[in-house]
């Protein structure tokens, strides 16, 4: 009897069918990989199992009994039957001990006093199950990121878990660190606990899972035997057959190299990264979450300081990159996390756009309102920003429009080398298409662009060339018009 199963579950959200007639079952002691690109329906499937949401049709069975409750009681019901989730974002309190974190908010007390002996004993047991020898009194802030992830896993082992769901537990870890997590998952399964393992790293999946379920467009496409299926086959199932390549861009890249990177190393993510970027070229960097894409851009911009490597701009070596100095050299950078690092929500579109170069909108050191308006209008028009007024607070715009302003900031500053980290993340379809067009237009003007993306579908639409970042190095390279989604995805997830 499966420990958890979905029977013909359908879940609709306004405008989308997130899950459509899905049936799925996990046995005790089994590790089941769950594969699918972003938005395929993996998260919805997980929310069905945890009772965070109820299906519109169909039923969810845990231990052979259907979940009956609705609302917040449903999650409690599922939890009570032993379903636990480890999420990808870490949720530990750094200044507290491992034991305190494990029991966060549920500390065992006697007469209002926390019984630390008992708490530490239970913590030691939970850590032992994962093969970890850490003192329960150690503060979480002294742990490595792999150890923190393991503490997160240990947290779900308290009580009597029946099914443990891990959502990309290794995405923030380097390959060597990830091994510890994989071993821990194997130990969990050996104890007869069912495991649902979401990851895109095929080498990991091959090591711990026997079968993989592939989700696409809200449907369970297939459950394959990991041992006999090859990576290309799995990629084909993930992307579907409809993925015929749309019109490839026409390269306008010139011969002149504007940026050269050689032997860049930034432990633990980047080992030895080398590439050239030419004038007017759009270079895509593909790679999984956590493959070091962001670190690469930040090292070039001087936000992080690499341990080794040479960066050349126009053939001249940059001594020690410093963010503002790189901006003066003509670089622009849009961060991956738009809300936290990109926008200043209370300020208007205009001030967000001109912040990269106030000098352009000053007369004699004083900001000129007409110049600001003109500069903001120019950005708004060129990048098709939808905003009621040029001084509307940027926090009130949609994500796509915010992103256009963040890119427009560097257009205002006349940057000639743009480093865009996931510019289409959290952006609607129409805005995505507009951002692609904007990037091509900027390239046509002779600007050089590095376009980082984890969505392999969009890279062939925008890039002249795509390099795949995996295990700290740029592995394979694809040139337009021969950038093939399937090959790209296979290069991202496979480690041989």
């Amino acid at each position, binding site marked *: 009897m499966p420990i958890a199963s979905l029977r013909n579950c359908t879940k609709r959200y306004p405008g989308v069918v997130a899950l459509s007639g899905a049936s799925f079952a996990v046995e005790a002691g089994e590790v089941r990989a769950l594969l699918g690109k972003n938005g395929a329906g993996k998260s919805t499937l997980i929310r069905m199992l945890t009772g965070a949401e109820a299906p519109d049709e169909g039923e969810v069975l845990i231990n052979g009994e259907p979940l009956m409750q609705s609302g917040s009681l449903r999650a409690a019901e599922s939890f009570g039957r032993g379903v636990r989730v480890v999420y990808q974002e870490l949720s530990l309190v750094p200044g507290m001990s491992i034991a305190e974190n494990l029991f966060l908010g549920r500390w065992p007390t006697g007469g209002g006093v926390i019984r630390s002996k008992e708490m530490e004993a239970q913590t030691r047991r939970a850590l032992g199950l994962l093969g970890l020898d850490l003192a329960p009194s150690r503060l979480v802030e002294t742990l490595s990121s792999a150890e923190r992830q393991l503490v997160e896993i240990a947290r779900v082992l308290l009580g009597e878990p029946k099914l443990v769901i891990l959502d990309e537990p290794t995405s923030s870890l380097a390959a060597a660190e990830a091994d510890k997590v994989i071993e821990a998952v194997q130990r969990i399964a050996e104890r007869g606990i069912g495991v649902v393992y979401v990851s895109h790293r095929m080498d990991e999946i091959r090591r711990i899972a026997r079968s993989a379920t592939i989700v696409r467009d809200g449907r369970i496409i297939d459950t394959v035997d990991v041992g006999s299926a090859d990576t290309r086959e799995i990629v084909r199932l993930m992307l579907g057959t409809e993925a015929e390549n749309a019109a490839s861009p026409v390269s306008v890249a010139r011969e002149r190299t504007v940026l050269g990177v050689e032997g860049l190393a930034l432990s633990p993510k980047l080992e030895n990264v080398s590439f050239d970027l030419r004038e007017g070229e759009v270079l895509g960097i593909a790679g999984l979450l956590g493959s070091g894409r962001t670190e690469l851009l930040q090292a070039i911009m001087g936000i992080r300081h690499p341990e080794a490597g040479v960066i050349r701009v126009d053939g001249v070596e940059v001594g020690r990159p410093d963010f503002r100095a790189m901006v003066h050299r003509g670089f622009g950078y849009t961060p991956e996390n738009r809300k936290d690092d990109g926008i200043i929500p209370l300020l208007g579109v205009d001030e967000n756009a001109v912040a990269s170069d106030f000098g352009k909108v000053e007369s004699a050191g004083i900001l000129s309102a007409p110049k600001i308006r003109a500069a903001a209008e120019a950005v708004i028009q060129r990048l098709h920003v939808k905003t009621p007024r040029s001084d509307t607070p940027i926090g009130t715009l949609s994500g796509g*429009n915010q992103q256009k302003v963040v890119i427009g900031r560097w257009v205002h500053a006349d940057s000639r080398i743009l480093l865009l980290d996931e510019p289409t993340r959290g952006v609607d379809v129409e805005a995505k298409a507009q951002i692609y067009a904007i990037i091509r237009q900027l390239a046509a003007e002779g600007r050089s662009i590095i376009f980082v993306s984890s969505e392999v579908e969009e890279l062939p639409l925008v890039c002249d060339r795509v390099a795949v970042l995996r295990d700290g190095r740029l592995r394979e390279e694809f040139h337009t018009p021969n950038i093939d989604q399937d090959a790209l995805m296979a290069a991202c997830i496979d480690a041989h």
Partner: protein
Amino acid sequence: MPVETGGVAAPAASRSRRFSQHMNELSLFAAIVVLYVVFGSMADGFLSFNNQINILRDAATIGIAAWAATLIIIAGEIDVSVGPMVAFISVALAYMLQGGIPTPLAFVAAILVGAALGSIAGVLRAYFDVPSFVATLGLWSALRGTALFVTDALPVSIGRNDIVDALDRSVFGIPPAAIVMLVLFAIFAFVSRKTAFGRSVFAIGGNAQAAYLSGIPVARIRVALFAIGGAMAAVSGILLLSRLGSGNATAASGLEFDVIAAVVVGGTALSGGRGSMLGTLLGVLVITLIGNGLVLLGINPFFQQVVRGVIIVVAVLANIQAIKRSRA
């Protein structure tokens, strides 16, 4: 929420938005009117010309420091060193004048010393990540201590000095301190709205990481802010010296809290990113009016502090409610 505003709704929405932008200033203005009506009808002599001049002079003590504090708080920082800085500068200036340094030169030196001392806190904050509260708390203690130590808590007399005396003589009935305050207000209001420096301050307070990634020199601006804070405290110190005729290590006690109260009553968010100079001007007036009116009402000085505390909290509370309601 995504904004896809059509042509019809936009004008009304933006009008109410502009109204809500000024809701803060409007409600403060209303509070000032209420204070005038209450004190005017209850306290004898509150409305007299002389008392109005007194209010202006008292306002200058808080106001000059409050202009700089507004920028510091908008940038998401805090400066609690104001009172001791004012007292320290007045003492240092008194010694300089005693030592025969020409008065204008001594003034310039005092302002530079204030800026240098302030920038210590700025450097600690910007380059060493010491929280600005702690950095300025250190200054607060060290400056007060130094001033008391060297003077033995006794006033440092400067004797006759024409320039210093002139600073305390009214021009057409208006005290120079008030004029200095208003001129500085105009400069700060202008800088905060119309210069790259001023807008960068808002950007840093709104999202420091995004400001840095836009190429704004965040660290340098933070140092500059605390240097300006020190310089403005020095200006207050000069005016204090002219008013008392001596440098005084025990003066301006608790001024920093009046300054912060004025800025906060003026609607500037302690979390940074939001605030206005006009709001602070009105906040300074509210704080000063309360102090002045309570004295004239003859309320027990200990109890005055209670009333003042309650009024400050109620003013901020009413302001927050008014802004919330106008947004809803």
